[in-house]
């Protein structure tokens, strides 16, 4: 063997892990998205023809209703972001910079809506606000104006904002706590008053956090399927993800239009990401070291107002929907006033051989499998990514970022195309394996994120030390890296498990006929069947996942 060849082989051997990871991601994410994009440009590409270039886009431009729908989607996501800011920023300030008593409870009250799937909150709100709903029963008739307002643009906005303002509050709290006291001292020494301090120092320093949390909320809103699907039809507000869903699932099926709308949705998501990054960079910042910060003492009135805000938001975002959900799940017969209570619906969905139990076991199995696969593959990819450099690493980084930004429904549509294409001879489509694949592709980001954070904090010298003592690559990974990564991977496993247990959009698009997951069971029962069964299942799912989360937290505290 010539030295050159040996050098080449050695190079290939060193590059092998990153090559494998890149190929894996390319196949799992890159290929479906590429195909989706290609099909949106060439509607007949799967039939082997390049005719009709840009046809679907032409139709979007020419159809007034579609243009209106797209504008509405963007406006709606924007409105959700603004409302979330209005609700979240004061909460963040109260938590970070005042002596509000009982901050722990305030923080917990923010976590409840974050942990509640938006579609379940939306379903519960419908139960409260619809004709003959809880509001009618308890208040003896809701004003028609209020009902009309709720089932319109702003009502849908409110429901979505209630489930996402917590992100803003926590981000603002974190950012405010990270602004070193010295920066304020320096301004005060130069004579700045509180309003000058706020306007010239604090708000500008906070802008990146406000933009970043806004980005998160906007992305979540524009790509959210559940709320538009549940409330959009009732509020006569067609929104992008729900429309894509109907184009893929309802007669007449229009894949070219669905893929082009999906591509647009992707474009919006990416544009939002870049614009908000640009804004955040322009707003300045730079990383600040966390430090103690000055607390603004509140008077009795301030404390009351602060707690009033948290209580009001908790009532709207958690207490009300949860009460509606639980009471409905326990309702026996609806008559005048509140219904008699029964556990019958729980028995029905948990009875051996029932559809409910089947859905639950399917979800459990899928979620456990998906979480495990995500953690194994995600942890390894993150490791390879963090410890490599060069163009392949850039590609890998970009690919791994994709599912974080690309709306889930787009990934799901892409997967349908990719595994239904004429050149695929594996029988994956229309089986549960398809769903498992979708879960892994969509939710691997959590595992990647958690591992990334943990790995970048880990010094490579620890690995070098082991390597110098003669440990091979695998040995280094398994006995040095993995043990340190374990807490991050465990957290990622729990998170992935929980989101998969509640996952709606990929499940509803990719489920094989006759099968159900918890989310599709809830959705279908609510729309076509028994509302009480839907709410019983929602309660079971939320209780189950919350218990897993609490067990994990408790376990971690003890460790």
């Amino acid at each position: 063997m010539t030295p050159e060849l040996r050098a080449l082989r050695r190079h290939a051997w060193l590059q092998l892990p990153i090559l494998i990871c890149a190929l894996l991601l390319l196949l799992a994410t890159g290929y479906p998205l590429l195909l989706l994009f290609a099909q949106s440009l060439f509607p007949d590409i799967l039939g082997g023809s390049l005719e009709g270039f840009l046809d679907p886009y032409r139709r979007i431009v020419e159809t007034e209703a579609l243009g209106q729908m797209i504008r509405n989607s963007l406006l709606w996501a924007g409105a959700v972001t603004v409302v979330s800011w209005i609700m979240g920023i004061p909460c963040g300030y109260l938590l970070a910079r005042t002596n509000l008593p009982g901050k722990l409870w305030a923080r917990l009250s923010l976590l409840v809506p974050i942990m509640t799937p938006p579609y379940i909150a939306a379903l519960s709100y419908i139960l409260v606000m619809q004709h003959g709903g809880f509001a009618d029963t308890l208040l003896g008739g809701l004003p028609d104006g209020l009902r009309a307002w709720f089932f319109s643009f702003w009502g849908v906005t409110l429901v979505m904002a209630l489930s996402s303002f917590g992100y803003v509050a926590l981000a603002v709290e974190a950012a405010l706590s990270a602004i070193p006291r010295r920066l304020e001292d320096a301004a005060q020494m130069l004579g700045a008053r509180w309003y000058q301090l706020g306007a010239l120092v604090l708000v500008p320093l906070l802008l990146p956090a406000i933009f970043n949390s806004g980005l998160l909320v906007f992305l979540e809103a524009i790509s959210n399927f559940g709320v538009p699907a549940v409330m959009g039809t009732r509020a006569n507000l067609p929104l992008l993800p729900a429309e894509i869903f109907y184009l893929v699932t309802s007669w007449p099926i229009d894949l070219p239009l669905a893929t082009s709308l999906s591509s647009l949705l992707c474009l919006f998501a990416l544009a939002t990401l870049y614009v908000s990054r640009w804004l955040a960079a322009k707003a300045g910042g730079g990383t600040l070291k966390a430090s103690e910060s000055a607390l603004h003492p509140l008077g009795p009135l301030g404390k009351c107002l602060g707690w009033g805000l948290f209580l009001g938001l908790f009532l709207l975002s958690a207490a009300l929907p949860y009460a509606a959900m639980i009471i409905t799940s326990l309702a026996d017969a609806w008559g005048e006033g509140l219904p008699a209570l029964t556990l019958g619906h729980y028995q029905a969905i948990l009875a051996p051989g029932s559809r409910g139990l089947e859905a639950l076991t399917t979800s459990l199995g899928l979620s456990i499998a998906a979480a495990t696969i995500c953690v194994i593959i995600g942890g390894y990819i993150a490791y390879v990514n963090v410890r490599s450099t060069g163009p392949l690493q850039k590609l890998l980084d970009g690919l791994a970022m994709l599912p974080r930004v690309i709306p889930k429904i787009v990934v799901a549509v892409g997967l349908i195309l990719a595994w239904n294409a004429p050149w695929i001879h594996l029988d994956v489509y229309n089986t549960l394996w398809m769903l498992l694949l979708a879960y892994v592709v969509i939710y691997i980001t959590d595992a990647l994120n958690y591992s990334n954070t943990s790995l970048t904090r880990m010094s490579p010298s620890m690995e070098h030390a082991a390597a110098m003592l003669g440990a091979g690559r695998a040995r280094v990974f398994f006995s040095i890296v993995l043990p340190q990564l374990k807490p991050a991977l465990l957290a990622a496993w729990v998170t992935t498990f929980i989101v998969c247990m509640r996952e709606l959009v990929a499940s509803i698009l990719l489920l094989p006929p006759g099968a159900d997951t918890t989310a599709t069971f809830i959705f279908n029962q609510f729309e076509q069947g028994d509302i009480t069964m839907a709410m019983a299942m929602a309660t079971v799912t939320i209780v189950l996942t919350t218990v897993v989360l609490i067990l994990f937290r408790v376990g971690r505290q003890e460790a």
Partner: protein
Amino acid sequence: MTASLQCTAITKQFQSQVVLKEISLELPAGECLVLLGPSGCGKTTLLNIITGMHQADGGQLRCDDEILDDRSQGIHQSMQRRGFGMVFQDFSLWPHMTVAGNVEFGLKIQGVGSRERRARVMQALEQVQMTEFADRRPTTLSGGQAQRVAIARALAVRPRVLLMDEPLSALDARLREELKSEIGTLLKETGTTAVYVTHDQSEAFTLADRVALMYQGRIEQLDTPEALYARPSTRFAASFIGASNVIPYRQEGDRVTLRDRHDMPLPTHAIPPKGHLVVRREHVVIEPVGEGTRHLNGHVVLEGVCRRRSFLGDRHEILAGLDGGLEIRGFSQHPLRPGDPVAIRFPGHGLHVVAD
């Protein structure tokens, strides 16, 4: 403009721990006072009381004729109104403003017109040689550059007193040297009254008109750098300043001895019966015994053994062991080896003693 500062019997305690015990000092306008001491000595607390971040429990703080802090009279001027400038250890530049924006901030607050503002920003940046960085963001600056900007920010408002809290300790050694002398020049040129906190005595000696050496919440000695070096008044001052040999002595009859063995030519009537002898390291010459030890007039010569040697470039530092477990540090031109018998010589006149 630049003003004088006066502390009278300032005390401060946190919970039950007394951090400052009756601190009194006077700082005439245009002087630089360095608060020097080990960590935990109270120097930062004193500075925080001067800035107005903390209020003193007792005593009075005055700037010119204005009372800034006096609990007994219920006066505590807020730090916004003191008109002081401050340079922080971690720079604390606002990351969302440009360099010029940072310097301009205080002038804006003071309501200085935009034309004069621009001129004064440029002047302040010129003083620290940072004009070409005016439009840069603080995050793109090195530590030394960032601290220059922070100094310009504090000076631009022409503070009554400039306060500096270990401004050089986040910088590397070379930069520290450079910026130290620049700060010294700047303070003299602008005639700014300054209080400078540090634990580094070379900074204190370079910058101070007077040094307040602090220890355990007290001012141990308040003196010019030269006096502090030549005539430390307490055992702590003697051991903290310079690298001195601080050796316990005893008077017995008309003899003054170290460990009852080595006689010292000290006037018994002029010194306390028990205390410590301070011998500066650079006054001690150590030679091999065989070299024909010269008994110079008025010099003390002791015999010992070389314990350790470290090469300093131009000479060797020797740690010599004496009878009775004494150890003395000094310098030698000879590459002595551990175990070599040596002669230890230092001038007997001007030996300095401190009481216990």
